């Protein structure tokens, strides 16, 4: 199960398991982002390279326009994935 929760004032929230079967849904949401924003990972349990690829493409697109994605509240397993992938140097992490 994976879901993206939007709220009027708070950050975008990823919930559940972001695997390859959920990446089209994720890309559709990420493609709507046009300015710097925060994505809250507090309820994200799992991510694989498919999800990392979608985040990377968004970060590159936003970076070209002078904006950036910031990721917050990564669990220790996802934080380790980001470290191994070298994503901790291309994403601000709170």
């Amino acid at each position, binding site marked *: 199960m994976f879901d993206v929760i939007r709220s009027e004032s708070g950050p975008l929230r990823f919930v559940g*398991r972001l*695997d*390859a*079967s959920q990446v089209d849904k994720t890309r559709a949401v990420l493609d709507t982002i046009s300015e710097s924003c925060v994505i809250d990972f507090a309820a994200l349990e*799992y991510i*694989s*390279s*498919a999800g*990392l*690829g979608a985040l*990377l*493409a968004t*970060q*590159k697109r936003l*970076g070209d326009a002078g904006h950036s994605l910031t990721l917050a509240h990564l669990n*220790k*397993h996802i934080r*380790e*994935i980001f470290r*191994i*992938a*070298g994503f901790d*140097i*291309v994403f601000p992490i709170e």
Partner: protein
Amino acid sequence: MKQSFARNVSSLEELFGFIERFAEAQTLGEGVRFVVRLAVEELFTNLVRHNTGGGAAIDVSLDRDGGELIIRLADFDVDPVSVDPDRPVDVDLPLAERTPGGLGIHLVKSMVDSLTYEYEHRTFRVTAIKHLEDTHV
């Protein structure tokens, strides 16, 4: 435990259920479960995307032998693999030069203790072994 899964990323939901049943039976901790989920997903989706001429299903087996977890995937009646599974990935590149290709296998190789491939009689087999005492995530 062994089960066959349809050659499609939509099989992942069923595949994760299979992994959870194995993890519960073996009382695996969350760190090891994360590694098994990641290894199985990355290896399975690589077979789905890159192997051509294959059959309808891919076999996945999960076993425990003492202090080792053994993950095996077998893809039958496939053409020789054209993707180099050992190509290096530079994770120190700046954002502008990054591409996601090859990242999945890089993650798996970083998180398991051995990863081997075999292609014989039109069957592609990949085996990953994780030492249980080495749960660094």
